[in-house]
């Protein structure tokens, strides 16, 4: 019997997935099974709930009351792109100094061991701060690379620009979205720039389509490295670039779909180019 269709075997894989002990082969097999049988999601959610209840039953402590405000403050620091490092090191040093007298009282017999412990904690916090800065640095590099790509395209006379505006509808949180596609079929480069485009809801994707002779042709998924306001280079095939110089080409639309592989738009149009 094919084990892929054995329900006990599948349940065993689902349990392994939830406790994260699948081998790489099992993980790949389970990923394919999940694609083929979306009803497995219910089994995973049940097992996940069981795991949550087990951990809940083992946990007698509450997180410190000041932990959430600390996390939100740090998140604010990341968002504001402030000089996190200096501020954090200062705060952390003050916190460690605040704990010193008590620790010294307890570990009077070994100042050396205490210093090693403090250096360890300080090093850990410095690494945390370095991680924050690296992430920010990576984001700025991506922004810069996209800005360079846009600049290079705008310098070329063959470049075309299509602007998008939101297609307003009730229950649509993309109503304030807007953007542009800058494309050069000769150079085979295209960059999409947008603002206020929220992440798609769970189980949905944004798809871009060219409109040729009133027919909508797929141009791939709109999947930037971040949501909201960003730009990114579109991954086009040669055929897609040809579509942009097609005599019947009349514009672009972005739709919200539940299936990334649909060959024609099935979902809602969220943005369309102004030429349509």
């Amino acid at each position: 019997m094919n084990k892929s269709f054995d329900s006990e075997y599948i349940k065993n894989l689902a349990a392994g997935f939830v406790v994260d002990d699948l081998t790489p082969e099992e993980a790949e097999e389970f990923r394919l099974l999940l694609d083929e049988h979306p009803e497995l999601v219910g089994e995973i959610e049940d097992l996940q709930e069981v795991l949550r209840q087990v951990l809940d039953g083992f946990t007698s402590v509450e997180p410190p009351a000041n932990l959430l405000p600390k996390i939100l403050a740090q998140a604010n620091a990341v968002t504001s792109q402030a000089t996190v490092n200096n501020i954090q090191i200062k705060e952390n040093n003050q916190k460690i100094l605040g704990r010193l007298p008590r620790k010294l009282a307890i570990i009077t017999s070994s100042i050396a061991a205490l210093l090693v412990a403090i250096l360890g904690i300080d090093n850990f916090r410095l690494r945390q701060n370095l991680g924050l800065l690296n992430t920010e640095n990576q984001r700025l590099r991506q922004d810069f690379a996209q800005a360079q790509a846009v600049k290079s395209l705008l310098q070329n006379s063959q470049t075309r620009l299509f602007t998008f505006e939101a297609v307003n509808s009730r229950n649509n949180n993309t109503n304030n979205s807007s953007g542009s596609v800058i494309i050069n079929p000769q150079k085979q480069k295209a960059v999409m720039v947008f603002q206020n485009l929220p992440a798609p809801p769970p189980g949905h994707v944004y798809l871009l389509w060219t409109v040729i002779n009133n027919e909508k042709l797929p141009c791939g998924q709109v999947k930037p490295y971040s949501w909201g306001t960003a730009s990114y280079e579109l991954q086009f095939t040669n055929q897609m670039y040809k579509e942009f110089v097609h005599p019947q080409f009349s514009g672009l639309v972005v739709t919200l779909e539940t299936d990334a592989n649909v060959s024609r738009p099935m979902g809602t149009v969220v943005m369309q180019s102004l030429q349509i």
Partner: protein
Amino acid sequence: MEPKLPQSNSQELSFATDEALFVALKNGDAQALSILFKRHGRLVYGLALKILANSQEAEDLTQEIFLTLWRKASTNPDCRFFVRYLVTVTRSRAIDKLRARTRQLKFVEKWGQTMTDDTTQEPTPVEQASFAERSQRINNALHQLPPKQRQVIELAYNQGLSQSEIAKTLDIPLGTVKSSTRQGLLKLKQILLNSDLLSYE
């Protein structure tokens, strides 16, 4: 003036699913981060504390995990199974930190008992009663499992041991640890979710 985090105006987020909150997080909604912490902060902190046995380190790890969620929300793949994701990340990072600590500060271990910073707040009477009820329910369910399945689950999630440590502790092959954990979880599902249905009826 320092820029403020984007905040959702809607109270509806409090009733949103984890998946929907994760989408809000991708859109930079700090309210979603706050709600996710209120829902799952205890789970993450509690598990980290069990493994690390140090309240300051558990606090640091909890902070690190939620900040990573915030920083990388827009680039993370969708967290479809959010609790699984949190448990996996917490266990794996806590075990890594424990190993790093053992490697780097081995000679300080003898101070371990003294160094443990027991700043965890005492639970209130209401919290104690709630824990006693949850604990009793899980213990009753666990005692309906075969001994090996019960042991591996307790060692993994109550003692915070890695699978290889469990294999060594119980002197059984790693494969047996894995199969017992999976079978134990499947049996617990029957026991706990059936009792949920019965109590609902």
